[in-house]
């Protein structure tokens, strides 16, 4: 991503010359306060939004021509699962992308059921998302993109609003996936646990970039941008200082 900028029609400038790279197989976390531009940035990764600047995904520039191919490689999970689950049943939602790709029916059935089993959603396939819990909705939203076997998984606030048990299950699942992951989150404990690199954004700009220890352990940096050092990092530091 090079010099990417984006302004919404109401003249809110969400991104100002953002540049960074993501390496194959890594888990990149994008952190920042509300309104930092994280979600807007994610929407550029598969061409839902397009602003001045250059976005290249797997050596291919995001353009009108390449959208179909890029969207099959980049799976985007939205913050609110109700935005992602728009079909009458969970089965139809998970199958949606494959049906758009005009895959054979047998393959669609097999892949949908496989992913539902893997995420513990078997038996819910005929339900409407309206009747699921938030945790089930989040998992179903994840299933809708995992079924497409994306090379890059992009998640916007994956753990927000979840109870501790469901959050732990989700973290376990995310750790299992070997594809490249880009996660925008306020949950800095989650970031500390799964990220291999962290980018701090504020006011539509990249403020800092580095390994999780360097960014998440920097109290001044985080507090200067309306964030705080995650409890897990505080505890780890404290335990290091206790003489055995």
């Amino acid at each position, binding site marked *: 991503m090079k010099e990417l900028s984006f302004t919404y029609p109401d003249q809110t400038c969400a991104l100002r010359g953002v540049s960074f790279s993501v390496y194959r197989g890594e888990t990149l976390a994008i952190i920042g306060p509300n309104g930092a531009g994280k979600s807007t940035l994610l*929407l550029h990764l*598969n*061409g*839902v*939004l397009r602003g001045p600047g250059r976005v290249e995904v797997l050596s291919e520039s995001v353009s009108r021509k390449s959208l*179909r191919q890029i*969207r*099959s490689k*980049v799976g*985007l999970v*939205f913050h*609110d699962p*109700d*935005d*992602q*689950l*728009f*079909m*009458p*049943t969970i*089965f*139809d939602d998970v*199958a*949606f*992308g494959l*049906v*758009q*790709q*005009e895959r054979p*029916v047998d393959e*669609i*059935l097999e892949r949908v059921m496989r992913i539902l089993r893997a995420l513990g959603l078997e038996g819910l396939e*005929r*339900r*409407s*998302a*309206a*009747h*699921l*819990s938030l945790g089930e909705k989040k998992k179903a939203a994840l299933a*809708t*993109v995992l079924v*497409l076997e994306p090379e890059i998984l992009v998640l916007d606030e994956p753990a927000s609003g979840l109870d501790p048990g469901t959050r732990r299950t989700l973290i376990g699942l995310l750790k299992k996936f070997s594809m490249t992951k880009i996660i925008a989150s306020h949950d800095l404990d989650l970031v500390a646990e799964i990220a291999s690199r962290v980018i701090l954004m504020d006011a539509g700009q990249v403020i800092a970039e580095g390994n999780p220890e360097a960014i998440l352990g920097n109290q001044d940096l985080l507090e200067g941008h309306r964030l705080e050092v995650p409890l897990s990092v505080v505890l780890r530091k404290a335990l290091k200082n206790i003489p055995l």
Partner: protein
Amino acid sequence: MSQTSTSPGAASLSLGRLDPRIKIFLFAAFSLAVAVTPVSGERRFAAYFLFLLAIAALSRQSLARSIKQMALLFPFLLGLGLTIFLFGRETPAQKLNLFLTLGIKTFLILLALQLFLLTTEFYRLLKALESLRVPSLAVAIVSFAHRYLFLFREEVGRLMKAKESRTFGRKKLHREITIVSHLVPAIATRSLQRSERIYAAMLSRGYDGKTIRTLDVLKLRKEDILVGCLATFLLAVIIIVF
């Protein structure tokens, strides 16, 4: 979370398994038969009611409950009655007869519709509409309306609670109207924002902005055709005999 759709327990019903396309055909045939029944066809109306009663019994639905739910429609029927009595050149007896016939016809058709909806899972109904070549845009609109009606209701509920929590003293009608008139644009804005996010989610999973395709899961079985033929035969018998 015991429900799978808006049709409570639809999957467990014996008629719930019947192909929804057959049900749509039967509903249309029944409605047509009721609509063309002459004013003097009291015995035939009774036979139609028994026909529905049999379907309700077969599908383990309480007809009494369905009739109770239809009580909401009675004001509309009364409105219809008023129109008949206020306009037209018929004698009062003829007007009364016409009102009763129209009332019975409306009642029977709506009862049939309710039985049809109660025994059909919503997603199967949508699939049936798709396979009957109903324009995909129309099916999509119904599907989205059904999916987001709950969320819309929740959002309205949240806004109303927020309003209540900051309302002190006695409620005054003109103030209430002012507050609600301010809530309406807020709800509209939220709905618009959500629709934009949903569209973005659709695009990101390969939607091309044209047709919403879904997997066709309906398979017409021999039993479906048999039940369809039997029910059509019964309707024909009612029309011929009564």
